[in-house]
């Protein structure tokens, strides 16, 4: 009997070691070893950034069907939140934005790290191009096709697309910004691109910037509704809502978090701003233009008709008469930092380190962090 009992228990043990599922894998439940650090390899470079961008024709985004490989050093970080879902790489000819489409990219693409991009199947397009007298060049970007037609490129987003096209190499050291001290060094925003001017898309330090006493913000009454409708848009710009603060609209920070925006709104700073875009206006029952201070939006004073949210702000500076916008995201960690009052009063100038962008014929600079602003 002893043998029988042992045999039966052995049978159960044996059966327990079997599986009906072919690929069954036991869970390792003791102590896991740390995986090794990734080994980095990048494909050989075939083109400079300038050479790649030179293939771009305005308003004609192109899907690249060659084995073009560009390579550069990561010059931006999205850690403080002023870059969103993308980063710039820079070689000796210029810089270009890689529209990855993931959050917190600085964890995977370190500032100073070499990154190569295999461009086949990706799309070369431009953001911010506008024709006409008030237009100009935008920024050439590498992304994916956008069948919706909203933009010339969309984010890569899909992890397999990213893994098959973006390759990480060694960390070679942070990019040293090029110094700009005169307007003449700046690119002509009407005509320049990364193909023609090495500062476009590159990390630069612009010295001697003087505050121009003007800001620009685009608000929405409800961001879950149509953002292009004039009945949902409020431009805090030189032509709208000047109110008690004039062209600054009382905004003395680099951007506005939700709380800062709420402070301005509830203080009535923007009550004179009309809800409008172009020739489309929000009208009240009497057919009059509706401003943010209109009872139908202001209500009991809590502004129930206006969504409270974080907003990007463009603060205008000048360098020798050339306008340079410092555009900062409302979601960045220094959004609510006050600009030095002496700077706002024009008593002091600042130097700003960031990536030069072109947008509809104007020059913008986007900083990585608060440390990139230095009061001179």
């Amino acid at each position, binding site marked *: 009997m002893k043998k029988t009992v042992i045999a039966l228990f052995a049978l159960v043990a044996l059966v327990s070691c079997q599986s009906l599922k072919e690929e*069954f894998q036991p869970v390792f439940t003791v102590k896991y070893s740390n995986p090794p650090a990734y080994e980095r390899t990048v494909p050989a470079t075939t083109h400079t950034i300038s050479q790649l961008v030179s293939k771009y024709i305005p308003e004609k985004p192109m899907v690249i069907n060659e084995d073009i490989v560009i390579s550069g050093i990561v010059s931006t970080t999205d850690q403080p939140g002023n870059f969103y879902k993308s980063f710039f790489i820079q070689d000796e000819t210029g810089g270009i934005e890689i529209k990855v489409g993931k959050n917190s990219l600085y964890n995977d693409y370190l500032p100073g790290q070499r990154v190569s991009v295999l461009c086949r199947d990706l799309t070369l397009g431009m953001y911010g191009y506008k024709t006409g007298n008030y237009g100009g060049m935008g920024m050439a970007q590498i992304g994916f*096709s956008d069948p919706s037609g909203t933009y010339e490129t*969309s984010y890569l987003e899909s*992890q*397999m697309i990213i893994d098959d096209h973006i390759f990480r190499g060694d960390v070679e050291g942070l990019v040293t910004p090029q110094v700009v001290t005169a307007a003449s060094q700046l690119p002509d925003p009407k005509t320049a691109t990364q193909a023609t001017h090495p500062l476009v898309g590159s990390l630069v330090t612009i010295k001697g910037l003087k505050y121009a006493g003007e800001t620009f913000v685009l608000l929405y009454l409800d961001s879950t509704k149509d953002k292009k409708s004039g009945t949902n848009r409020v431009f805090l710009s030189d032509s709208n809502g000047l109110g008690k603060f004039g062209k600054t609209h009382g905004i003395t920070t680099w951007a506005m978090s939700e709380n800062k925006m709420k402070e301005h709104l509830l203080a009535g700073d923007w009550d004179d701003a009309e809800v409008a875009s172009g020739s489309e206006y929000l009208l009240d029952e009497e057919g009059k233009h509706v401003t943010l201070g209109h009872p139908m939006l202001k209500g009991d004073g809590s502004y129930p008709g206006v969504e409270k949210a974080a907003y990007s702000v463009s603060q205008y500076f000048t360098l020798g008469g050339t306008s340079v916008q410092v555009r900062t995201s409302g979601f*960045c960690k*220094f959004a609510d930092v006050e600009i030095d009052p002496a700077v706002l009063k024009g008593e002091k100038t600042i130097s700003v380190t960031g990536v030069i962008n072109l947008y509809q014929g104007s020059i913008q600079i986007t900083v990585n962090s608060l440390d990139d602003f230095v009061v001179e």
Partner: protein
Amino acid sequence: MKKLLTVAAALLFSVLVFAQAYTGGIKGTVVSRAGRVPVSGAEMVLSQDGRQLAEITSGSEGQFLIEGLADGVYQLKVTADEFSDLTVFVTVDKGFVKDLIFVSLTPSASIQEADESNYAEFDMEDSGYSDAPTLLLGSNDVYTNIAGFGFSSIRFKNRGYNSETQDVYLAGVKMNDAITGYSPFSLWSGLNEAMRSKDTTIGLETADAGLGGFNGVTDIHAVPLSVRTGWRFSALSNSALYRMRLMASYASGENNGWSYAFNASLRVGGNDWIEGVYYRSLAYYFGVTKRLDDAGKLTLFTFATPGQRGAQNASTQEVYDLMGDNMYNSNWGYQDGKVRNSRVRHTFEPVTVLKYEYAPEDIPLTANATLLWRTGYNGYTALDWYDAMDPRPDYYRNLPSYYYMEDEDYNRVNQDKYDWTYYAWTHRGPEYNNYQHLNWDRLYNVNYNNPDGRSKYALEERHVDQNDLQFAANAKYRVSEDLVVKGGVDLRANRTENYKKMNDLLGGQYFLNIDSFAERDFAANEALLQNDLNYYLAHGTAEKIKKGGKYGYDYLAQIRVADLWGNASYKLGALTANLGAKVGVTAFWRDGLVRKGLFAGANPDGSHIYTTDINGLQVDLTNLSNGQTSYGKSEKAKFLTYAAKASVAYDLFGNSRVSANVGFFNDAPTFNNSFISPRTRNTIVGNLTTQKTLSADVNYQIASEWVSARVTGFYTKIMDQTDVMSFYDDSQQSFTNFAMTGIDQRHMGVELGVKVPLPLKGLSISGVVSLGEYIYTSTPHMVQTVDNSAEVVRDDEVTYWQQHPVYVPVSYTADGVPVFDENLDGSFKVDHYQKHYVPSTPQFASELALNYRTNSYWFFELNGQYFDRAYLDMNPLYRTTFAARGSESNPAVIDYLAGQEKFAPAFLLNASAGKSWSIQRKYYLGFSLNVNNILNNRNVKTGGYEQTRLISSVGKDRYYRFDPKYFYMQGANYMLNIYFRF
């Protein structure tokens, strides 16, 4: 000759209780309810008013005889391998030997091996939903016996009731979780032998341990004398739970006034169907009893189930289809080539019990007093990340549908990205693992990238560590032959610490103790980001958390309960009437152990707390808290609770009985449904009130030689329930809390269980049917708050919770746009209102089984089960007028958003077989084999939930749903168990 041998054998298996001249006695034959096959070796214990009088074992033909009994009511408890324990009350009258003829045991080889681990741990992520299974075990009731275990694979909830409605007692102490109310079977999972002996009641019936509610009482004895005497070893292998279980138990029986017992088990391995799920659990029980004198016994026992188990989670149907596997589990991935699950429960919750039992010989009284202490830890790991990508492989942005959907109104138009992503999900091989499973190696590499050692990804362990001290005393007194009164008192003090602990820094050196959600909104003020503001104010920086450190949140749930109950039972001829009542007080409060920056409150002396912001300006954190605080004690929530029950039963001819029960209950809400956001602040849900329940049932039972059956009709109305959910709300772009009050439900239906022996000896047929309608009957009120703010963002009714209007188009335009009929006032004509159902259990469940048991102790069973009318858990957000945007012009939007998914019906075929051997009537060897879901049906949904997110249309004029997530039943699986007993 055979008759003569039987009589001779009966004499061998008889006992004389009192030597004096009592002539009364009890005799009968122990048989299987399935086919009337004799059960030999059944152990029987006779007792009266709590005093044990005799022990006897049934003979080879199942026969037994107990003589020398005085007139009176006796309790005969019968236990046998592979059968449910049975307790019968026998009245000996006028000095006659009462012939019970048959004592029928219910086969339960499988049930004895069933415990809480029969239910895979469903990981509900941060969905806000809960899924607690209910277990109905150890009953001899025909219906319960089948429905309890047989329907566990579909996670059947009897009468649609939630887990917390089932009262579970251990050694006379109510064990339902103090925080959630859930029945706590996991505390003794794997200790089947020690916990085998139990009394169960169903529905509104009362028990000796307590008055009970409306969903039955399970009273597990757990004392050493209730454990089967002798050694027992078993080995169990299965393909649906853990891989293997080894168990041993021993009970001494009573010897010189002492008795002791132990039970230990080991459960290890994963299962065949859900990868990443595994067990590595020990379980132990040890108890000792000392008889102090003729009346008193003192018992001390302790048990625990230390170990860990990996959980499965739910995914959308899109993911299951991409993987070609409805049992896909996204919780796991490869770490350095080895499978690792991110959701693992680690538990060690020892329970220690001191029980005194008093049963004097000269008074028909039994009394018990029990002191119980539960302590230890219960942690549940989860990935935590700060300022890093969501690492879950099935995160919605990682799926093909995020890039392309046929309906252009979703604005997902990128077919190429869809194709790339589809390719990554549908190809198999090591190079695709990182798209289909967690990529642990990447998480480590991200952490390696931080030169100062700060982890961006980490494994947190969410702890709910209970210290539960309970005292329960109850007494039962037979006032006369016709009147029995019982009553008791229950006292409970529970102190549960809720906190997060750093389990694994995943290659990093520390994790910063700040609130990443707050950082997005309050970056200008570092103090507001702090999870532990006091630490920040003292050190000027956030705490760097090392492995094992507490972080995130830390608060105590303090709960106090005092109940007094009583019950009287009066018998008048064939009529028995029962009346019971309970009154009590429940109080609870939150005690915050850390001060959160966003809800700083004030200093103990009332002074305000200040800090400076990024611009150097002073900020009053107390004012910013807007009257809410995270630190210290909240206000106390106090509730007067009470209940009343009444029942009548009438014994009819032919061993049949008709009975009716009614009860009303006024219960306190549970702690976890009483605070808006207990992780962040002390704020109690507004208008918090008690839950009221009115319940009634009517029963007919028969237990004759030809049929055993019960049919019950029930009606239950549950009112004023509260539910608190926390989830990410796209419309608020934030983590929000959703407190619903005034939820009413109505449960009504019939249940039938029947077992009929067939003419062929040993063959029987049995069947059960549960048919109910469990619906919501109110329009609850909801208050939505954002986790990072004291502000109420929505305060409204959940308009379409109870039901929603259905509009039927009368025609379509040339573009396919539906056209609806309108009333004179311009509103759309409603075709009908669609009810909404209580989810997560089939409202129709049935089984038909054929049982065969031979004289040589083989048994076989084949059963077919059919389930229907199960519904998906509803998300309240989809039932608000806010979400129904666009319904003014297109009323079909309401039906689309508020409609509740009904699961497809399911048919299952199961079989079991077994055999036991008695060797020299000293050793017993047996095995049982269950094969479930023989047809390998892998499309049976057993649960799930709706995601609480919305997709805005291209024109921003309406919302679409996110796909719901489902759990599926496993395919064909087996359970093989062998045991050896002596």
